[in-house]
């Protein structure tokens, strides 16, 4: 039977996390259906239908799905669950919020943040902040899975899935969206950026993050931060990379003034190339960096910017 993947989107744009979750679902064997639950989300459904590897796109377009609140989302997914042997969502704050409700109502354990599919019922997942990797076998019954999207690569190419409307079950009516404060940025999102430059406590102030902005602009990079920098109030929490923040795995991660606490490393150590700039040559970040520069960042970052300019970036 088929797998159901829950699409990540903001009613306008389909997020990369969706394609990566589809890649995980594809490894279970069997067809993959994609659920787009949103409000005025026609553009997302159209984009979803063009993803490779999707047999059918189910669209639930109703106001209660506009913000993907857990209660109506879980009710919707449960109404579709009998048709599927596996239900997968990306391990975004949305997926982590609604999916365990589905698992509980189906009376099955959820397998959280899988890193790989070993077989249709066996998966690996990180535990202890990524200091250990567990291989687990799920019991018979529906597999309910969240996917660590950095561990999967979306398939390339184009598809042409049929779009089918699904009716929305009654909204439980016990929760409502009040408002949101989203960080506005012209830069790519942390979880999908090819390059990330992050600052730590060594940045000394929020203002100094502008130094990183200049490099980020040249490299089309996202700007991140360590928990120490967030806790010090330099930047908002949604900048945070680490076990308690976002887990990222870009092509290049540049750690600036970050010592490399375990919890930070857990969020970025799967990056393809890691560069680190820190004035303390004993900083643990150098133990995992491919390229390390022991230097005062306030001198090194402007020099880096100059060199990038010289090279035409």
């Amino acid at each position, binding site marked *: 039977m088929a797998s159901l993947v829950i699409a990540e989107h903001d009613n306008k744009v389909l997020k990369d996390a969706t394609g990566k979750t589809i890649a995980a679902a594809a490894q279970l064997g069997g067809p993959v259906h994609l659920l787009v639950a949103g409000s005025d989300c026609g553009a997302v459904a159209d984009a979803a239908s063009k993803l490779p590897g999707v047999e059918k796109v189910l669209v639930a377009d109703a106001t209660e799905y506009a913000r993907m609140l857990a209660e109506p989302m879980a009710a919707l997914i449960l109404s579709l669950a009998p048709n599927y042997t596996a239900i997968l969502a990306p391990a975004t704050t949305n997926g982590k919020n609604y*999916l365990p*409700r589905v698992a509980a109502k189906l009376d099955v354990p959820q*397998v*959280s943040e899988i890193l790989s599919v070993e077989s249709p019922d066996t998966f690996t997942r990180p535990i202890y902040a*990524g200091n250990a990797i567990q291989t687990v*076998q799920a019991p018979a019954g529906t597999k309910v899975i969240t996917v660590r999207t950095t561990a999967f690569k979306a398939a390339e190419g184009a598809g042409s899935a049929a779009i089918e409307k699904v009716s929305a079950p009654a909204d*439980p009516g016990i*929760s409502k969206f009040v408002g949101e404060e989203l960080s506005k940025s012209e830069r790519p999102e942390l979880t999908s950026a090819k390059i990330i430059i992050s600052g730590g406590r060594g940045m000394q102030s929020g203002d100094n993050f502008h130094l990183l902005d200049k490099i980020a602009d040249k490299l089309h990079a996202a700007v991140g931060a360590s928990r120490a920098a967030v806790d010090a109030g330099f930047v908002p929490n949604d900048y945070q990379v680490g076990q308690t923040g976002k887990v990222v795995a870009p092509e*290049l991660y540049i750690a600036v003034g970050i010592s490399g606490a375990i919890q930070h490393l857990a969020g970025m*150590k799967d990056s393809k190339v890691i560069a680190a700039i820190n004035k303390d040559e004993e900083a643990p970040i150098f133990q995992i960096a491919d390229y390390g520069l022991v230097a005062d960042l306030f001198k090194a970052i402007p020099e880096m910017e100059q060199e990038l300019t010289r090279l035409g970036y």
Partner: protein
Amino acid sequence: MGNLWGRVFGEGIRTIMKVLVPVKRVIDYNVKARVKADQTGVDLANVKMSMNPFDEIGVEEAIRLKEKGKASEIIAVSIGPQQASETIRTSLAMGADRGILVKADGDVEPLAVAKILKAICDEEQPGLVILGKQAIDDDSNQTGQMLAALLGWPQATFAHTLAIGEGTATVEREVDGGLQTVEIKLPAIVTTDLRLNEPRYASLPNIMKAKKKPVAEKTPADYGVDTVPRLKVLKVTEPPKRVAGVKVKTAAELVDKLKEVGAI
């Protein structure tokens, strides 16, 4: 439930809300977990154990609600081995009023924990349950949501701020793009994120007082819950190791290297 709460609030008995705070005994967050050589799990022998940090934030938030007159009683619940009574005592020393220890050896999965907590909620009828968003051992991030589903209650996960209103809670949540505010009807489930508060240290007099607070001892069977794990752990291994690369001398050299390997 909505009607019942409407009636209770309508009669002006607003501060009778009990708050339940589930607390888990886990490896101390400063200790690096070591995988056992036989790949059966993580070595916890002679390792410092503490309250899950996210749960500590939950206890603190409950105490603050009580200090503001929004909660009448705080019940700390732990499901785990006998030593989990220490975790309950820590909660009591911080300011919780009484404890329930549900003794269970070995791993108890989030779904089984949620089932036990549901049974306790049925008995205790709390207005709010505040849990950590995840435990730092299994990193599942499921229990609060599962409990909410089993009870049919709303949930506000990853709480950044919490305000109790008239039969509702307004919660700012830490989401991927920033902050989202939701309003949920009570009774409800809230799970904590790191910035909700900074937990207090228990004072010595409070540690002494906590020793006299009641802790009931139960078993999963008392609640009719089977705690045999449903996920089979086939093995636990070390993550792939990265090795240190090269040191460069200047920022310009760093840029050149990154260009050379096609990283920029």
